[in-house]
């Protein structure tokens, strides 16, 4: 590969933020696992002038449970999620997404922060994280802010991260009420395939009634989206066939798929309806 850029590899977060702040005018590009960035640089889609490698910043990697809050460092890898008993308990949809993510060597390098920051509507960790009401923490030299992942994406490959900010972690409240969480990735194969449609669902119930519903859809809109009108059709309702069927049809209605090389918009819409119905039924059956 040939590309002209300066490369710094700091060993602390403060070091990285200093470099980000100093270079903000011309732009500093963080490099985590490189599984998007190196591919994009080789293809000429990205031409960074200054790159900051995050690989030596240990404080950005790890999974921490603090009371009912679970935090995943920005540089935590997809393989870390796959092997984590904490994640299996606090977000089983993420383990499923990690299992169906790329191939093993990419899973070993690819990070949670990189998956969010790449802004792709097909980023597989995003529907599970949205279904868990995750929050993204952004840090720069002058401070820290946390924003709901639901508000993080502004449009196709556009997000609200500032030039000098890093994603340091993503966190969510571990549900204390009775709830179930699942993910399904529809793609050509189980390994090494880009998602045609991804669906993540979280259902919470009190008795037979749905107290909270989250339905997140991948690769069917310019950004990974929540089907909020479909969620509203479930909340407060008895979790039976009628409510689930109405929500599945509503989710298909509110997604905005396009035709591309992997599938047609019509197929994707059909997949959303079928998968939302399937996952809602499965999660309901685990609760009731």
């Amino acid at each position, binding site marked *: 590969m040939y590309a002209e850029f300066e490369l710094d590899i700091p060993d602390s977060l403060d070091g990285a933020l200093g470099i980000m702040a100093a270079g903000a005018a011309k732009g500093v590009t963080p490099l985590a696992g490189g599984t998007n960035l190196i591919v994009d640089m*080789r293809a000429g889609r990205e031409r960074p002038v200054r790159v900051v490698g995050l690989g030596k910043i240990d404080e950005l990697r790890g999974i921490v449970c603090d009371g009912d809050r679970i935090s995943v460092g920005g540089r935590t890898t997809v393989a870390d999620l796959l092997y984590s008993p904490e994640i299996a308990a606090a977000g089983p949809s993420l383990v499923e997404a990690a299992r169906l993510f790329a191939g*093993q060597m990419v*899973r070993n390098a690819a990070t949670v922060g990189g998956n969010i920051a790449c802004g792709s509507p097909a980023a597989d960790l995003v529907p599970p994280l949205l279904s868990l009401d995750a929050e993204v923490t952004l840090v720069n030299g002058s401070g820290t802010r946390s924003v709901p992942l639901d508000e993080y994406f502004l449009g196709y490959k556009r997000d609200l991260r500032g030039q000098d900010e890093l994603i340091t972690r993503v966190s969510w409240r571990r549900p204390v009420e009775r709830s179930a969480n699942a993910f399904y990735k529809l793609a050509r194969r189980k390994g090494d395939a880009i998602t045609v449609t991804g669906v993540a669902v979280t259902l919470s119930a009190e008795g037979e009634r749905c107290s909270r519903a989250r339905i997140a859809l991948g690769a069917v809109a310019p950004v990974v989206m929540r089907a909020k009108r479909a969620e509203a059709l479930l909340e407060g309702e008895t979790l039976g066939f009628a409510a689930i069927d109405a929500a599945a049809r509503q989710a298909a209605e509110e997604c905005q798929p396009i035709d591309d090389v992997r599938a047609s918009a019509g197929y994707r819409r059909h997949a959303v309806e079928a998968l939302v119905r399937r996952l809602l039924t499965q999660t309901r059956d685990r609760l009731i």
Partner: protein
Amino acid sequence: MPMEKIIALTINGQREEGAFPPHRTLLEALRGLGHVDVKSGCEKGDCGACAVLVDGVAIDSCLTLAWTVEGQEITTVSGLGDLAEPHPLQAAFADSGGVQCGYCTPGMIIAAKALIDRNPEPSEDDIRLDLSGNLCRCTGYTKIFEAVRTAATTMRAHGGKA
């Protein structure tokens, strides 16, 4: 021309140095130093032919910049064994017919080594999951999976050692 830096790597137990610019991938660096047992296939993370272990973890060397692994331990397929003393994985791949043209083999063996080190008794699903980033255009995979099972059995019989 971007500035070069002298980078030291421990490759198959031997310390080596090279002067590399920031954009030099580990794949290019290794092959440039003569480690041509590491293969270049797609150079975009799809095929796994370039897989090496970095401190025991399997990664695609084509997606890794040499500077980012400075000072770390790199293991390539040659580091596992040779013709005189093959690693059980190398022996099993040869015996089972898991090698045809051989282009995918170095990466396959590296991915399988990382799997068995982590999980000495892998199931069929475990093997498929860990080799899901390695493409083979010749064998149809059946004999590769068989070789990994055989090697895992041999290694367990030797107490987990090669």
